[in-house]
């Protein structure tokens, strides 16, 4: 069993609380991604699991054993660093086998493991090279190989792809996923890139200011964010937030944006927001894909309005449009053939079946 459990884990640097009481259960074989902006405590959390940082409070358990005071080498973990951290004076094979040699594994066993890992990572022909003769992507593969040959209980990745260029990053992302499918080792992966988090993770942990904002599968986070932070952090372009109020008119619940624009809520949403305050300042959360060009025969729950576009960004398969509404800059995604032009008016439709309603003051999703 190689599950990882964090119980009320706290990390303080002098007076600064980097991690403020984190609870997290990571199941055996699970791929969990910690994601958040820089300084949110995700790397610190990972380093505490690795044992590279002492914990100020709480407990960390690996495979059911409390490892608070266990040195890194006895935690049976392997870590992949952002800058690879390969030993520059050793060949690829020596780099990968360093840990095994320290533990005095038999030579034949070491060779088998290196061969296996090298094949898995497609670096067989590189094993006799020095790190400086390798490209960035190859170095990252070697760093992963070094982790794989140890066959540890847990893999820890600390922003492993952020030093690679965009194209290579996508490729290595797939590579990491493949490796995890093969070895099934419990993995904790830290990144600030929400795309990486969404694509790799079984479950994503969104962190902010040393706390966990939400834990969930990528789909849960995307479709059911718990807070404004999660809603804005996950998804690109980010979710739009439009200041609004709830009001009752004609026996139906409406969300009023401006004096002129108010949308009636679809029945399911109306039922959900029935108990919400009518006076609080609220935010209407809409993802760009739910603001599109108006169709002739709209589906139920889809309402239309007119807007004058500021800027359009043709992306090929879609066009991103930007316009102002109640002081907020709103982004929508329309069909490239919808006739969106800079400075031109366009009739738009919002899909209220996928709307979110947030409390502006607390940032909580209602």
């Amino acid at each position, binding site marked *: 069993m190689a599950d990882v459990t964090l119980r009320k884990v706290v990390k303080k640097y002098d007076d600064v609380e980097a991690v403020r009481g984190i609870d997290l259960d990571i199941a055996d074989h699970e791929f969990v991604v910690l994601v958040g902006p820089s300084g949110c405590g995700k790397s610190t959390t990972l380093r505490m699991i*690795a*044992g*590279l940082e002492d914990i100020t409070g709480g407990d960390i358990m690996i495979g059911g054993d409390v490892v608070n005071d266990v*040195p*890194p*080498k006895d935690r049976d*973990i*392997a*870590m992949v*660093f*952002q*800058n*690879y*951290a*390969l*030993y*520059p*004076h050793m060949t690829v094979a020596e780099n990968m086998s*360093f*840990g095994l040699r*320290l*533990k005095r594994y038999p030579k034949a066993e070491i060779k088998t493991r290196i061969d296996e890992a090298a094949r898995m990572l497609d670096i067989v022909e590189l094993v006799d090279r*020095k*790190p*400086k*003769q*390798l490209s*960035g992507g190859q*170095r990252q593969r070697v760093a992963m190989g*070094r982790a794989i040959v*140890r066959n540890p209980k847990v893999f820890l990745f600390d922003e492993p792809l952020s*030093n690679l260029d965009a194209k290579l990053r996508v490729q290595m992302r797939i590579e990491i996923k493949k490796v995890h499918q093969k070895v099934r080792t419990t993995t904790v992966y830290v990144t600030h890139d929400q795309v990486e988090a969404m694509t790799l993770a079984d479950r994503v942990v969104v962190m902010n200011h040393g706390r966990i904002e939400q834990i969930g599968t990528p789909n849960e986070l995307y479709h059911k964010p718990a807070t404004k932070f999660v809603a804005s952090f996950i998804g690109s372009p980010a979710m739009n937030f439009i200041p609004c109020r709830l009001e009752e008119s004609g026996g139906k619940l409406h969300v009023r944006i401006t004096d002129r624009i108010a949308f009636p809520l679809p029945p399911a949403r109306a039922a959900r927001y029935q108990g919400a305050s009518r006076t609080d300042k609220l935010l209407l959360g809409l993802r760009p894909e739910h603001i599109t060009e108006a169709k002739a025969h709209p589906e139920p729950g889809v309402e239309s309005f007119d807007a004058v576009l500021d800027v359009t960004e043709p992306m090929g398969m879609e066009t991103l449009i930007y316009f102002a509404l109640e002081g907020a800059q709103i982004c929508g995604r329309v069909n490239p053939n919808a006739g969106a032009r*800079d*400075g031109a008016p366009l009739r738009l439709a919002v899909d209220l079946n996928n709307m979110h309603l947030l409390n502006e003051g607390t940032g909580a999703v209602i």
Partner: protein
Amino acid sequence: MSTVTIDKAAPTRNVKYGSMSRDRTWALRWSYFFLTLFAIFSLLPPIYMLITSLKTSAEISAATNPWWVFHPTLDNYIGLLTSNQFLRFFWNSALVSIFVVTITMLISVPAAFALARMRFWGSTTLATGVFLTYLIPDTLLFIPLFKVFALFGEWTGIQLINRWYVLLLIYPTLTVPFCTWIMIGYFASIPKELDEAAIIDGASWFQTLTRIFIPVALPGLIAATIFAFTVSWAQFLYPLVFTTSTDQLVLPVGIITTLIKGDVFNWGQIMTGALLGAAPPLIIYAFLMDYYIAGLTAGATKG
């Protein structure tokens, strides 16, 4: 929406092509000028020594052109290399230097590693303190040190003064602080992730030092070795004070005390001795310079 128009009639700036390379040419000229000046300045004395070492005493004292050898002779070299005394000085110097380099490295490398990497209370202050000790000149220290060793001899009966090995205790006071400082700098330039990776791979602190840090910081280690060797080979004041018997002397002091007899200066042999004495550091430099290459850490991390 405004449109940007490009005014084709706008005046264009006159571009001076080649101004960069003109600057570079002048910079090169000046640097070669000063390099030549410096080369002449620093090479003239050894050349003069070489010329003098090939002359007989008679020719040296004769009023001939001092920059030319009219009757070259190897007598000075033969005389010194067959003299047991000179070989003894040479042997003492070699012994002292090799021991001092070893002692220095054994102390300063682990010390630098501890100061650079193991974060402990007061480690930064201690690192600065190590360097400050290097700033105390030996002219200030030799009298108190002499007193200390004399007292030590009185109390314990172990005679240290006028023994060549007393230098093994003294020289490290010069070499250890500086070498530690050099090594702290080199170790600090090694990315933190490298030792973290080693620790996670299961290496102890000692294994991290011997199997990762020392190989990676080899250029720094060589620089420190060269420094320690040069300091102990060329040290003059301490051996002059602490050793007096001819069989305990090291080369620089030996040449001065035995080849100058009263007011008689045996210039030919003095120059020969000095040249021969300068040879080992030169040879060591020549050998180690090949390893003295930067960028050994290339490939450890990005960029």
